[in-house]
């Protein structure tokens, strides 16, 4: 470890020298957090707010983690970067997989069958040849072909603190077996994969493999290496070196979307063998922290407490920038790099920045290439035109910054617990009460006050941009909005009050008991900032004479109430896993009810018609027939109003003028490879923006010196007087 006093004195000396050198260099920026040479290099600088929890693709399932995981691991498919609506295209799969359906009689067909007739669906993936893994010690071999670091003894890890300390790296070609190995890892109980339960419903033999592994693990240490190649998964088999097949129960078209997520990225068995050796976990050298992928980047520095650095993978096969996009993309210059080989940047440096103020200021200083916009900085960055369009403020535009906006594939809603005696249930009174509240709670105002206008009031569960969502008059919720002058206008309060009378709650008084109506809002209180939001909520209910009682609690208790179905009204949200209406409509599917089945249907809504339609829609391909059924489902849900449909948030992001090829893509996570930087422009801009200002320092020093004069005079005078 360090010799601290020596280290500090050395650091102080070098720092002073650095400052002196920087003072002599007119172009140097003293506040540059990176080495000066880095800023002129082909490096992308950004930040991350939360330390990633897991980098194992079998387990990783949050956007904080995908920032890194998706650049390193490559699943078979990916989303097209420019095309909209979102479209799947091959990544390491050599073309899209072939799909065959098997009926109950065992007959295979390449033609689509109605879901009821499909016993199994078979996906056959052909893997691109010549794809190689990043350099990694797990793949390093000796001259005789044996793995160099697969049989480490107790003393071999003495000086090893990170992967770089091993000194030797190796690579090998990607094979079909690596994909099958990863699917088996999802079944491994030690990996705690969040999609294990879901995949068990579909992949043939998944449950059997999981049970078999559980039995094995009862007799072995949890850290020991279990070679999954020795275990059979009947639903995933290797056909040849570059072909594998997955067989799933029935028909599940969304399965292909999962193939674009890191869960299904290939994993070499050598990695598991390497990381399972004794002493590795005690040094935090685990597969959960040191990925092994085929992607355009590899993790060169893994310090989640400070900085994550990804470097260009020297064995990356190269991938051409997409050549097809919309006419708008051409106008925005997004096809300027069409056909050029990616990735464009050599390195990406992500610094941990937990607090919003330093993060924002570093972006303004040019030390982060991109940034989101916090509520505190919103007015500084964005202004709205008379037509309601968000544009950058003059100051930002002058600095060459750009703003990109997109409606996220997410929904935030206020849910009613349908199991509740007052607000829930299928009765006419409760339904009208819910509809009245849906009108009264003005989400346009909510978006304006609490989200700086960054959102679109929702008309149903499916966000714009996802198949099934309709625009214009056909897309409005007729129970809450009217179509007036070409735009949706929220129904009047009188309409809501009328519904209250019909529901038996005229003026907010329960006509049967004569008592005023009180409802309970289950709030997760995070601090004083929530007070304004909760007060606003109370006011919305007050419009109908309803007293809203806020039950603030922590997130654990809130979750418990949801699981038990004891909450009454709550606010929640959902981010899409994939761009398919099924991923939103399933939030209202009866058998997914949270209280009964621990599913994602938090309002415990159950409607036989909706559920029947869902089962049909779920397995259909997009087309007019599917659209018609979705329309019917959405209409049922709007009529029953289990949610106040809330809003779909809009993502606002900023980037500097030296960052190119930015197009918001809320589904794709592997977007770093598309980004191109102009390092010369960045260096010139940051140098101009960050020249040290020294005159206040000299003035302060002068004032301090002047203030000492009377003290010194007084001291001398005192020293001369005789004792009293």
């Amino acid at each position, binding site marked *: *470890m*360090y010799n*601290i006093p020596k280290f*500090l004195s*050395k*650091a102080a000396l*070098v*720092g002073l020298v*650095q*400052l002196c050198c920087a003072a002599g260099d007119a172009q140097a920026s003293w*506040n*540059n*957090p990176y*080495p000066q040479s880095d800023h002129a290099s082909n490096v992308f600088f950004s930040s991350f707010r939360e*330390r990633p*929890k*897991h980098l194992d693709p079998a387990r990783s*399932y*949050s956007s904080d983690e995908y920032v890194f995981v998706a650049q390193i691991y490559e699943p078979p498919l990916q989303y097209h970067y420019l095309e909209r609506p979102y479209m799947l295209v091959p990544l390491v799969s050599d073309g899209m997989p072939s799909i065959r359906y098997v009926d109950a009689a065992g007959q295979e067909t390449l033609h689509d069958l109605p879901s009821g007739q499909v016993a199994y669906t078979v996906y056959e993936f052909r893997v691109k040849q010549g794809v190689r893994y990043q350099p990694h010690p797990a793949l390093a071999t000796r001259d005789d072909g044996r793995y160099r670091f697969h049989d480490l003894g107790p003393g071999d890890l003495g000086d090893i603190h990170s992967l770089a300390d091993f000194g030797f790296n190796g690579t090998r070609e990607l094979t079909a077996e690596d994909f099958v190995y990863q699917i088996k890892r999802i079944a491994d*109980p*030690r990996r*705690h994969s*969040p999609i*294990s*339960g879901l995949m068990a419903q579909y992949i043939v033999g998944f449950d059997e493999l999981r049970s078999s592994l559980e039995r094995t693990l009862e007799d072995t240490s*949890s850290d020991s290496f279990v070679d999954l190649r020795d275990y059979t998964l009947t639903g995933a088999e290797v056909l040849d070196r570059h072909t594998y097949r997955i067989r799933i129960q029935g028909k599940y078209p969304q399965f292909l979307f999962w193939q674009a997520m890191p869960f299904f990225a290939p994993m070499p068995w050598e990695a598991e063998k390497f990381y399972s050796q004794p002493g590795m976990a*005690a*040094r*935090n050298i*685990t597969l*959960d*922290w040191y990925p092994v992928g085929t992607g355009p980047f590899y993790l060169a520095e893994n*310090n989640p*407490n*400070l900085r994550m650095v990804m470097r260009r993978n020297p064995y990356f096969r190269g991938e051409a920038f997409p050549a097809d996009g919309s006419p708008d993309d051409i106008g925005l210059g997004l096809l300027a790099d069409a056909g050029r080989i990616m990735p464009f940047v050599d390195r990406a440096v992500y*610094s*941990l920045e*937990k*607090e919003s*103020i*330093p993060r924002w*200021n570093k972006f*303004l200083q040019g030390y982060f290439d991109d940034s989101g916009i916090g509520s505190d900085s919103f007015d500084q960055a964005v202004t709205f035109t008379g037509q309601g369009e968000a544009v950058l403020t003059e100051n930002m535009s002058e600095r060459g910054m750009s703003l990109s906006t997109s409606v996220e594939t997410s929904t935030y809603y206020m849910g009613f617990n349908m199991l509740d005696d007052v607000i829930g249930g299928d009765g006419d009174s409760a339904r009208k009460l819910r509809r009245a509240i849906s009108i009264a709670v003005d989400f346009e105002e909510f978006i304006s006050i609490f989200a700086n206008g960054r959102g679109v009031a929702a008309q149903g569960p499916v966000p714009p941009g996802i198949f099934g969502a309709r625009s214009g008059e056909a897309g409005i919720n007729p129970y809450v909005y009217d179509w007036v002058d070409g735009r949706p206008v929220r129904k009047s309060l009188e309409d809501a009050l009328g519904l209250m009378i019909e529901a038996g709650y005229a003026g907010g008084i329960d006509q049967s008991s004569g008592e005023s109506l009180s409802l309970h809002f289950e709030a997760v209180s995070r601090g004083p900032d929530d007070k304004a939001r909760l007060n606003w909520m109370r006011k919305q209910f007050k419009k109908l004479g309803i007293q809203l009682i806020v039950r603030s609690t922590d997130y*654990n208790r809130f*979750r418990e109430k949801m699981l038990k179905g004891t909450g009454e009204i709550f606010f929640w949200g959902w981010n899409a*896993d994939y761009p398919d209406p099924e991923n939103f409509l399933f939030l209202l599917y009866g058998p997914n009810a949270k209280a009964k089945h*621990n599913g*994602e249907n938090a309002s415990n809504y159950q409607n036989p018609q909706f559920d029947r339609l869902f089962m049909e829609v779920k397995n259909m391909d997009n087309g007019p027939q599917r659209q018609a059924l979705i329309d019917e489902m959405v209409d049922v849900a709007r009529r029953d109003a289990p949610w106040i449909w809330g809003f779909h948030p809009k993502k606002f992001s900023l980037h500097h003028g030296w960052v190119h090829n930015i197009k918001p893509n809320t589904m794709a996570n592997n977007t770093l490879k598309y980004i191109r930087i102009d390092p010369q422009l960045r260096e010139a801009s940051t140098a101009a923006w*960050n*020249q040290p*200002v*020294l005159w*206040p*320092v000299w003035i302060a020093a002068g004032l301090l010196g002047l203030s000492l004069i009377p*003290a010194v005079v*007084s*001291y001398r005078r*005192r*020293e001369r007087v005789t*004792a009293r």
Partner: protein
Amino acid sequence: MSAYLIRRILYAIPILIGVNLLTFVLFFVVNSPDDIARSQLGDRRVTEEAIQTWKKSHGYHKPVVLNDNEEGFGKITQTIFFEKSIRLFLFDFGQSDSGRDIGHDISQRMWPSLAIALPTLLLGVLLNITFALLIAFFRATYIDFWGVIICVILLSVSTLFYIIGGQFLFSKLLHLVPISGYDTGIDAFKFLILPVIIGIIGGIGTGTRWYRTIFLEEIEKDYVRTARAKGLREGRVLFRHVLRNALIPILTGIVVLLPLLFMGSLITESFFGIPGLGSYTIEGIQRQDFAIVRAMVFLGSVLYIVGLLLTDISYALVDPRVSLR
């Protein structure tokens, strides 16, 4: 002295057990093992089976404090409390709930904390003593009056204000230092300047007032009067006699802080992006990672006890009238 030390170390054991038990109770009042599992596994698509598997693999499947299904000692030993606690007393912190080795993390993160805390303490003490001596020298003059007022103002201002104000002034307006961040080795220096300066300024008010009180107390003593009567200059009286005698409370006050320097500062580290133990503790709390919280509370308690012990020893060393029995 050795008997005294052994006795104090033995006293520490029930204190540490108590602290550990209290941490346990407080944490499990708010979080059940199911909550811990859910916070680690996330909210999406988590099945009950996955929760049970996670709890089993992380040792949270047993009763918290008392196991009614066991006999004899098993009632106590086959519990989460016993299994998680016993290793702590061997300083084996185990793995965090997210799977990282806590001992390794602590060994990595204590140095950045120390890199801020140590210069802040040493330079701060030096500056505070200088100011306090200056004010004591000019006692009952306008310098004393305004010095005290400035000290009261400085100690009334929140640390957060110093941090945000310092970042705004020195980094955003004057562009003199990076606004936040950290680096290893000698490159750390430019990142340490601002937090250290802010730490020193933030501590001037409290420190100067405290030291001033100590100096004024000493100045009233007979030996000072004697020194003056001998014709010594006021500066010599202050620096040679008053300062030396006042060092006893100052030194013992500092010694108690020394072990805790490793624990870092919660707010400063968070705002300046310093990967120290302060931000590690905050992360553990925010993520409901019980293993980290428990380890850090335990470590804090041990270091505090060590600090108190060192204080007693330093008393005996610097003041011959004190003996430890």
